[in-house]
């Protein structure tokens, strides 16, 4: 324990971060066939993990553990030693926490608390007294400092950051909660059939590290393996659990359409502003791409584009990741085109998601629906 950490209750350096990547990710279908949810590309140049990780770093957290479950090679490539987040440190820094249960290949996976339990040494060894537990499937730009101050001043056992939706959308799944007038959490449900509260959990939980250790121990010793359902919801009657409202842009990625629409939402300048320019930058692995080139024949309206693209065709209402090539005569509309994909001459794309490295050869036409975008798998040639 260096003095930097031990001194004080109230500074963010006394908080460790855990990003829980041991979540079910099958809802993203083809996008998570070969990668974890955390490394799903988002917003023209990011991956989902960049948001919770940058939020932590920007809030002054210096020790972050990444709980992993499976398919994490692409995540490790992306994160590396944490340099982009200034987390490649001798003290504290970033810790990659692979699951221990793969050691026993024949044992079935029970739930994410298994991952917490198998990395309990890291949690114990960390010098911070508090912990923020987050997950990668929520995109927002949040400064945890005020929530942490609320946690301390209100002497909560657990603080859950939530957002109140203007309307409840039924095309995706949420963890909802209900609070009393003082924001104490009185009910909380995962993807309920009824009880549609408009307050949705942003899956950011603040608590004492000691409490987390106790929750892990209690649950595991009783054969409970779900952090959210057993560890949090199972405790709202027993502990002082409060909600903390978050009022800026936040988007929950819990379905393909949710993913698709959240990406396209970034085209609204106020969302762009909220997500990228408030509370510090979103950091990501730099790729040293040249600026994007718009050629003579290009036509671009309402797009977000990363660097390294060469655009000779028409692109509207779309998100272009790094190094995308759009050939002359191609038309792209309401689509998400991932890294290094290439759209041949006179192709027509509408409401599609092209994963990385897809090649669409000349004159093809692909069309999905706004509520059912067409996904083309990584490295496909169409």
């Amino acid at each position, binding site marked *: 324990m260096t003095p930097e950490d031990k001194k004080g209750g109230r500074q963010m350096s006394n908080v460790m971060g855990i990003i829980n990547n041991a979540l079910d990710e099958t809802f993203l279908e083809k996008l998570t066939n070969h990668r974890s949810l955390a490394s799903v590309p988002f*917003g*023209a*140049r990011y991956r989902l993990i960049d948001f919770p990780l940058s939020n932590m770093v920007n809030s002054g957290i210096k020790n972050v553990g990444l709980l992993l479950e499976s398919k994490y090679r692409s995540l490790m490539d992306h994160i590396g030693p944490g*340099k*982009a987040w200034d987390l490649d440190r001798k003290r504290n820094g970033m810790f990659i926490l692979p699951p221990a249960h793969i050691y026993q290949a024949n044992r079935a996976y029970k739930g994410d608390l298994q991952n917490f339990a198998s990395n309990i040494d890291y949690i114990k060894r960390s010098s911070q007294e508090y912990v923020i537990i987050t997950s990668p499937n929520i995109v927002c730009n949040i400064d945890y400092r005020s929530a942490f101050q609320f946690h301390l001043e209100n002497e909560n056992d657990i603080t859950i950051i939530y957002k109140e939706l203007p309307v409840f959308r039924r095309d995706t799944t949420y963890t909802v909660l209900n609070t009393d007038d003082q924001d104490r959490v009185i009910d909380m449900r995962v993807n309920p059939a009824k009880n549609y509260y408009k307050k949705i959990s942003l899956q950011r939980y603040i608590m004492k590290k000691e409490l987390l250790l106790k929750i892990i121990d209690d649950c595991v010793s009783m054969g409970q393996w779900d952090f959210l359902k057993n560890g949090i919801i199972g405790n709202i009657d027993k502990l002082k659990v409060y909600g903390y409202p978050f009022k800026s842009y936040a988007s929950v990625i819990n379905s393909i359409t949710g993913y698709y629409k959240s990406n396209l939402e970034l*085209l609204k*300048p106020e969302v*762009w502003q909220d*997500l*990228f*320019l408030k509370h510090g*930058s*979103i*950091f*990501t692995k*730099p790729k*040293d791409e*040249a*600026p*994007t*080139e*718009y*050629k*003579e024949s*290009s036509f*671009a*309206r*309402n*797009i*977000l*584009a*990363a*660097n*390294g693209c*060469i655009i000779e065709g028409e692109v509207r209402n779309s*998100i*272009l990741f790094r190094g995308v090539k759009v050939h002359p005569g191609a038309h792209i509309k309401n689509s998400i085109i991932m890294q290094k994909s290439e759209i041949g001459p006179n192709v027509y794309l509408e409401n599609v998601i092209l994963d990385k490295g897809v090649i669409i050869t000349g004159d093809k036409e692909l069309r999905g629906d706004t509520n059912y975008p067409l996904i083309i798998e990584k490295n496909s040639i169409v």
Partner: protein
Amino acid sequence: MPEVEMLGMLLAGGKGSRLGVLTKNIAKPAVPFGAEYRLIDFPLSNCSNSGIDTVGVLTQYKPLVLNSYIGNGSSWDLDRRRGGVTVLPPYVKEGGGAWYKGTADAIYQNIEFIDLYNPEYVLVLSGDHIYKMDYSEMLDYHKNKNAEASIAVIEVPWEDTNRFGIMNTDDEHRIYEFQEKPDNAKNNLASMGIYIFNWQSLRKYLIADAAKADSDGDFGKNIIPEMIDDDLEIYAYTFKNYWKDVGTIESYWRAHMDLLGDNPELNIHDRNWIIYSVNPNRPPHYIAETAEVDHSLINKGSQIFGKVDNCVISYGARIGKNAVIENCVILPNARIGVGSHIKNAIICENVTIERNCEIGINGESDEFKVTVIGDNEVIKKGANIEIGKVVG
């Protein structure tokens, strides 16, 4: 670890006076280029891509900005456990200190640094040209020729020979004569200011030259002629690709326009020869519904609401609605207000052009002239900046 075979020494102290307001606050090698880069990124990336991993960067004019830009060299993959990039400002020694007299004197003053690595060869570079070059191929040439020194040269138009140092060579490319800006050149091979020397041999010449009070301490004027006189084996290495000296406002602007051709000679998209830079972390750029973008290079973090034609737009720039910019170079974080109209201009870092300005549109000029707005200037709304004017 393998020892250092060839050490790079990059001369990055130039004030670049002919660039005017562009170098008011920074040394020439720190001048932004191509929306994403600074001039020094080109030689540094060339070093990195050529496998030269020990580089001294000699600064002088405004060293702090360059120092913090270069940092530990990790941007160019030059943060090595041994070697890597070292920034060398002209420091004050026990007996005092002075700015470098010339290019050779700059190397002479840093003999102690070079000796730390005791390289076989020293590569001397300058920090203000735009080009992609594999220095390891030049070294192979140098070795094959068994040369004492090799000088990279490029063919220039015969009518321009009087602006360059011209190398006269025999059939084997051996240099028998050096003419500085000759009126009647015998040859059109101009020195690019890129030299490979055998270090032990160069070391002697540098020490001898430093002892001469009347020497300019310059490679072109002193060291090379001296070596030629001594009949050393000096060879010209001909470079045939894109190379541009951006020494004046106009050549700087033109080099940007060169990037916008349909098949630009300098390919900055080549993933096999990445031009690295210090990556400012910015969100993707945004082209609004109201925007119109043609024939332009646009970098991250910029927001385009107006019309952009034949422009290079650096990170963090914002072009307002109904603004029209043509043939412009927009440097980082410049803001162009709604309805402004700008043509043939360079808009420097953090400039704010308020709404409805006209820049480089009005006024007359016999010859073509670039209009320039210097760093941090604010142009009030409705202002009219005439063609060729330099503000700042």
